[in-house]
């Protein structure tokens, strides 16, 4: 066991809890970006360099941006006042459900004979990854590409809504 790993885990879980419990939506998003970075740090620690950078690039660079954008666009919501009793009871039940899930998971993990295989992390170069992606996983890669395209178009259509405003001002 590694002090670094424990530190990463603590920071990640801590920021995640703070993000989920925070009152300020924007702080939550930023804290969550930090949690995502923590996950990336874990990847880095485990030796999955490429995955770590991809995680930062996608989550911190793109997803948090989009989320922030959504936060700004929906800023003028008439809500998020003080949580009423319904909200509190829901929060309580949520925490209980999550605790139950956590308990089950931890129990299952601790009961399972999971001996870590000793030895160093499997070394994987970017070149290897590329070969794998273009070889055995080519179909999946294509599918993901199609999925992303479709999602992009769908998101644009959804977010654009029915545009009845004035036509775009041409330069």
């Amino acid at each position, binding site marked *: *066991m*590694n002090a670094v*790993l424990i530190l990463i*885990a603590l920071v*990640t*879980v801590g920021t*995640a*809890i703070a*993000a*989920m419990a925070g009152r300020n939506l924007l702080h*939550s998003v930023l804290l*969550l970006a930090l*949690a995502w970075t923590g*996950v990336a740090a*874990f990847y880095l620690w485990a030796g*999955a360099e*490429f*995955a770590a950078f991809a995680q930062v690039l*996608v*989550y911190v660079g*793109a*997803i948090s941006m*989009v*989320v922030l954008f*959504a936060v700004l*666009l*929906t800023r003028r*919501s*008439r*809500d*998020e006042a003080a949580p009423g009793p319904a909200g509190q009871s*829901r929060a309580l039940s*949520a925490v209980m*459900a*999550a*605790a139950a*899930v*956590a308990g089950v*998971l*931890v129990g299952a*993990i*601790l009961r*399972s004979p*999971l*001996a*870590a*295989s000793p030895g160093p992390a*499997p070394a*994987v170069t970017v070149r290897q*990854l590329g070969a794998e992606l273009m070889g055995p*996983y080519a179909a*999946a890669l294509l599918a993901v590409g199609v*999925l*992303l395209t*479709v*999602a992009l178009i*769908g*998101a644009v259509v*959804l*977010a654009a809504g029915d545009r009845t405003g004035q036509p775009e001002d041409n330069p």
Partner: protein
Amino acid sequence: MSPLQFCLIFSGVLFSVGLAGALARSNAILVLLGIELMLNAANLNFIAFWRYGPASAPATGVIFVIFSIAVTAAETAVGLALVIAIHRHQRSIRLQEATRLKG
């Protein structure tokens, strides 16, 4: 406790935190973020097993994580677009109020 178990517990706790967030918060964006957190926890498992698990193809875990990240990106994009659409229709993104498919 072996390192693998520690990693898995880490991931399990992270998952539960995400779940708690998704269940407790009423803001649709935060619910979405909770779900993101849960997905991240799942990705963590991929890497943990890749690192410590029985030896398999050398790059499998990483590749799964990459695919998972890509799919998550798509999911977030669509999810947030939905949130914006709901906001446009209802002037609110409280999830309790979005109980109808029609806007």
